[in-house]
């Protein structure tokens, strides 16, 4: 039956939960779609005009009946709504400690970078038993990152980050699809997700490989990933942070022209218009590309925009670096 499956693999913690709800819905549907046609069939045969049956005193309305078939379906749909809602909130809320992987979608390929700097195209290696968070953006149009076996899907938008998380449960290779129509080769924007036991995953991570850049070219100039990675994505970000001159204003010790970025990620920032904002990836992104949009209280809107000067790839590295500054506090 391998060549003619009727039901998808269950390979994440969500898969079984979503399927339970799905089967409940199927069962409910069978009560209606399975019984109602037989009721109709019975009625159209029994009351066919050729049948001599009692047709006296036909009824045209009955409030009790109307209320019954209003209230019972209402209760049932509310039940599935709340069941689905709790599961949805869980699927959309990543846990605190996750393995962060950066994904860039572009016409028509997926580019993935792991925190240690390892890159891959149209493939995603993940460990099983560990929550993995994908931080995704697009270089052009809207794409959608879809792993059917994990029952997760999230649109990937240009100009912002979207986040998706899952925890794989079963080693294996699974389909990766782009689910949002994105142009000519939409149906070729596919790949595979490889779920590995943790030890294998770590071995894979440490295996040197070519550095594939988001444009698909292979950068031979840079060193390949070394056997014991420090945190090369953050390290690359730190390098950029210096090269772009960010450190001139954002002094780590504080007291610079710009606020210190130490411990920033995940913190709540007070803005000069009195509102507050949580410093997540989208806030960091906006503050780099469009710095005057949200000004931290007590600072002047003097930072220049880096729109167009750094690639999505570099932006990810900068953000990985800023996030690593928060980790040191813990």
């Amino acid at each position, binding site marked *: 039956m391998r060549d003619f499956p009727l039901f998808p693999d269950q390979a994440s913690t969500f898969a079984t939960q979503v399927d339970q709800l799905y089967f409940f*819905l199927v069962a409910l549907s069978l009560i209606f779609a399975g019984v109602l*046609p037989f009721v109709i069939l019975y009625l159209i045969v029994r*009351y066919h005009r050729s049948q001599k049956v009692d047709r006296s005193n*036909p009824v045209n309305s009955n409030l009790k009946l109307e209320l019954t078939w209003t209230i019972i379906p209402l209760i049932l749909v509310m039940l599935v709504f709340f069941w689905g809602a709790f599961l949805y909130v869980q699927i959309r809320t990543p846990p605190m400690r996750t393995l962060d992987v950066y994904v860039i979608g572009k016409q028509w390929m997926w580019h993935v970078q792991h925190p240690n700097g390892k890159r891959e195209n149209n493939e995603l290696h993940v460990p099983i038993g560990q929550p993995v968070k994908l931080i995704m953006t697009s270089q052009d149009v809207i794409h959608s990152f879809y792993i059917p076996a994990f029952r997760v899907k999230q649109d990937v*938008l240009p100009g912002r980050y979207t986040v998706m998380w899952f925890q794989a449960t079963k080693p294996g290779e699974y389909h990766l699809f782009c689910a949002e129509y994105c142009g000519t080769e939409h149906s070729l924007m596919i790949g595979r997700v490889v779920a590995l036991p943790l030890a294998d995953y770590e071995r894979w991570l440490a295996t040197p490989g070519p550095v594939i850049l988001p444009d698909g070219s292979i950068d031979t100039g840079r060193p390949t990933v070394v056997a014991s990675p420090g945190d090369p994505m953050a390290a690359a970000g730190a390098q950029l942070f210096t090269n772009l001159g960010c450190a001139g204003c954002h002094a780590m010790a504080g007291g610079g022209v710009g606020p210190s970025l130490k411990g920033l990620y995940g913190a709540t920032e007070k803005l000069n218009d009195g509102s507050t904002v949580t410093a997540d990836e989208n806030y960091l992104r906006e503050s780099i590309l469009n710095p005057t949009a949200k000004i931290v209280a007590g600072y002047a809107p003097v930072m220049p925009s880096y729109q167009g000067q750094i690639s999505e790839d570099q932006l990810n590295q900068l953000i990985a670096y800023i996030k690593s500054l928060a980790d040191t506090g813990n």
Partner: protein
Amino acid sequence: MATLSLPQSSYIRDNSRTFTEWLKSWLLTVDHKRIAILYLLSINFFFLLGGLAATLVRVELITPQGDLMSSDVYNRAFTLHGVIMVFFFLIPSIPAVLGNFLVPLMIGARDLAFPRLNLLSWYLYMIGGLFALIAAVFGGVDTGWTFYTPFSSTYSNSNVVMTITGAFIMGFSSILTGLNFIVTIHKMRAPGLTWFRLPLFIWANYATSIIQILATPVLGIALLLVVVERLWGVGIYDPALGGDPLLFQHLFWFYSHPAVYIMILPAMGVISELISTFSRKRIFGYEFIAFSSIAIAILGFLVWGHHMFVSSQSVYAGLIFSFITMLVAIPSAIKVFNWTATLYKGSISYRTPMLYALGFIGLFVIGGLTGIFLGVTAVDLHVTDTYFVVAHFHYVMVGGTIMAYLGGIHFWWPKMTGRMYNETWGSIAALIIFVGFNMTFFPQFILGYLGMPRRYHVYPPEFQVLHVMSTAGASILAIGFIVPLIYLGISLRKGRIAGDNPWGATGLEWKTSSPPPTYNFDKTPIVTEEAYAYPPEAAERDAASWRPGSPL
């Protein structure tokens, strides 16, 4: 009681002597019935065109490789199918053809309130269609009928502007028809025809018209802004220009979800007429069916976000949209239960329109229930943008709207043409369509849950068996659509003369001759009873008069 010849004068006949005069008398007509016929011809033309594009898509999908056409051609084929079927067939189908013909007849009026506006609607429809056709001929468009930005506004290299112009112009046709219906239903009902004596088809078209007037302008604006961004680079949707790509989806679905109800509400109105007539009984729960149409129209405006659960819309917004979506299920369920209850103690005949009505209920139940799957946020994450969605909306659109459209065409065919179609062929075609439809679309639910994304030109080989089944079903479905064209065409010359009321139905449209005279009624009818006023013993009498050999 069958008359032997068609009435001496009717809306179809005129005293033009030359072909040009005759052509003018049709193209410049302000008679709602003639305009309905113009719509019937043009809409069916577009239906065949959309069907042709669907054929290309289904044939390509027989194999997992892209061997019949390139991906660019494939993308243009499914976009053409979507654009034509949604904007130029489904949305105008029942209101513009059956609504145009029947609204004045059913309420005892001479015509719609604004006959010239009505003709203008048809011309706008044709001009819009012309733009869409020109766009298709000169290279096509590859954005999908949804025109998602920034793909449509910046990246696509196809005739986006031309197609959008077509949809934009067609939108005005839709608005004007809605406006015309609302004014007509408010102001031109025959004396005694109170709101609660109106046929449910009128209620359904009234609810539809409200949606057409309120939602279509939003689509117009959304599409116009795509053109503005595309032509002049004004940043509205593309983040590279400072725009917001999600804004388009909000605006688009604010129209396009209610648009689904533009398609299904009139269909529900038709079904109410058919079930009542062929059960020889007043419809069960008249008020509940009428108000459920209004409830669907109102709630339909508040659920657009359920198309966007994975778009990065906030979790809380998603939950609210999901909640309201669940509520839409209730009025839909109420209608289905009331139709079923109407059958009880009726005298049921299996005439072709009734077969379509029963088929409608079966398919609509499946379409509606799978709509709940999609409305439940957690399940939608998995199945949205897969074949599950494709199957679901075809069950509602094709299984719903087209079944009702065909049922309505058969039911009112004797009124429109004065002649009967061949009942045997009618039943056969209805059966073929029902079977072919289920074979085409049921496998797609399974495909969708397996994870097969929609709009895929090539696909993993394990999905092939289900795709082949679907294509096989589609070829049966295609036969089912062609057969009626033939026997309906033949009936125009050879059909038995129908007489004023071949079905023994209630309703003012059956009180005038078939086909009706230009001004519908000799004198304005006065209404003294409710709709579907079958006397309590009507069903009993009908059954008692049945003899072996009478029509089933």
